[in-house]
């Protein structure tokens, strides 16, 4: 085999994507499907029926040992030791200055076993940080990213399909952000979590890379015409409508979780629930106080203060990442981090970092869309929230 620098990793499902006629794209060093047929059709399939995603590019890092829980408490911004076995938590790993290294989902699969799921582009950095912060006689770190595949089934019909794939009728009882061991197609061992990145109910299967093909095929067989393979194009508009941040857009080392409106994942400790030290604690305590002060008195916030908001557009022209947000006088007050025409809502939506004076819902701003100003209004996030009939929520 010949490899060269810059050649993207291939998913174990690459031949299936090719057979389905997928358009592939390079994403975070991986060649992944961007779409099979149509971004909008795939997006709508997830909102109304079910979609199947190959997200094998995500990183999977295991921590095991008697000291794993305590080590993760010191490494991440949430109290990981408080997660019950069989449950998952959305959290972050931060620098000592409070900047976000990555956003993560941590599954507690046993008393002394945790699975940390990192973004593809950050997986090796997160793995190295976890080794530096957690490794010891009582905590072993195993970066399983290369030998693990992740396959997501998302949408209001996902439950019926995963029950059929697994024969496990107990999956309906699985709470949102919970996980359990199951078997796909009779004999493939999988960890299945009721998690996802689309704003719909759904399930994610962690399986050995060698088994990915069987799980993918079993899903398509069980789902039939009611299950659409979906690419990263649909995944991006789905997560945007759901107000979910994407690392490199809404999150990065120059932002704290508080600026991103995700301060709730940081547990600084209270008198009732004290917490030991963790990386970034001091900076994050400062960021928390700063965010509260900006919210209480936005006029007093420094000129470069920024908080994340949702924007809804009035015209057809969408704001895109990097576009400038202006006040009514044309002065720059922020920047768009993600934006697209919303397939569900029918108008452009965007997330943007703006000065706290422009963060209140209902505030009018202007976005410089390729040299022409488009009026947009600050709206509450998420843009889309699934109806109760679409399955359980957090």
């Amino acid at each position, binding site marked *: 085999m010949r490899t060269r620098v810059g050649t993207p990793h291939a998913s174990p499902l690459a031949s299936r994507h090719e057979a389905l006629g997928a358009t592939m794209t390079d994403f975070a060093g991986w060649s992944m499907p961007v779409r099979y047929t*149509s971004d909008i*059709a795939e997006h709508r399939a997830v909102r109304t029926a079910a979609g199947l995603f190959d997200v094998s590019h995500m990183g999977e890092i295991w921590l095991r040992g008697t000291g794993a829980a305590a080590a993760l408490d010191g490494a991440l911004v949430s109290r990981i030791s408080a997660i019950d076995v069989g449950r998952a938590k959305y959290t972050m790993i931060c620098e000592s200055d409070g900047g976000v290294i990555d956003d993560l989902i941590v599954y507690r699969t046993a008393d002394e076993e945790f699975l940390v799921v990192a973004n593809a582009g950050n997986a090796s950095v997160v793995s190295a940080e976890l080794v530096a912060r957690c490794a010891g006689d009582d905590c072993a770190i195993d970066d399983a990213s290369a030998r693990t595949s992740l396959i997501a089934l998302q949408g209001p019909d996902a439950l019926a399909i995963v029950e059929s794939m697994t024969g496990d009728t107990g999956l309906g009882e699985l709470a949102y952000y919970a996980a359990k061991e199951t078997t796909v197609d009779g004999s493939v061992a999988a960890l299945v979590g009721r998690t996802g990145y689309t704003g719909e109910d759904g399930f994610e299967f962690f399986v050995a890379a060698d088994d990915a093909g069987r799980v993918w095929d079993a899903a398509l067989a069980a789902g039939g015409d009611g299950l659409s393979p979906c690419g990263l194009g649909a995944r991006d508009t789905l997560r945007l409508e759901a107000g979910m941040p994407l690392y490199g857009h809404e999150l990065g080392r120059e932002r704290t979780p508080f600026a991103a409106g995700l301060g709730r994942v940081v547990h600084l400790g209270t008198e009732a629930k004290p917490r030991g030290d963790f990386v970034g604690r001091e900076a994050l305590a400062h960021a928390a106080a700063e965010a509260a002060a900006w919210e209480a008195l936005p006029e007093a916030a420094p000129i470069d203060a920024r908080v994340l908001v949702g924007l809804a557009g009035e015209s057809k022209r969408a704001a895109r990442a990097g576009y400038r947000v202006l006040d009514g006088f044309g002065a720059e007050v922020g920047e768009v981090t993600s934006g697209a*025409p919303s397939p569900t809502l029918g108008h452009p939506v965007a997330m943007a970092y703006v000065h706290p004076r422009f963060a209140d819902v209902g505030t009018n701003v202007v976005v410089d869309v*390729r040299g022409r100003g488009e009026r947009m209004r600050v709206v509450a996030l998420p843009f889309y929230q699934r109806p109760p009939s679409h399955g359980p929520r957090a």
Partner: protein
Amino acid sequence: MADIPDELLYSEEHEWVAGENAAGAEVSVGITEYAAAALGDIVYVEAPPVGEEVTAGEVCGELESTKAVSELYAPVTGVVTAVNDDVIDTPETLNSQAYGDSWIIKIKVKTPNKALLSAEQYSAITD
């Protein structure tokens, strides 16, 4: 493989031109199947209004999909004589049928563009 009809002319910016590339002639202009596929689902088309003078190689409109934005370039120099309201109202038409009735604008040619490509030349740049 994207369809590239033999009888049309093409620009390097992925517009197609139907009609005579000659002064005084009226040509229809659209985007190629290759361009539509690369953009993904097109949800918005902005075309220059009837009467506007456009210049070959310069931006005269834009196309927006869920994923990306692309500019529409005038393939010839002349005056816009018609805008296809069907395409403006239902831009997704461009994804299902890029040619024929899916023209975006018509232009009365003032100056022919000798740099337009044949189907064979265009297919070479889309390989």
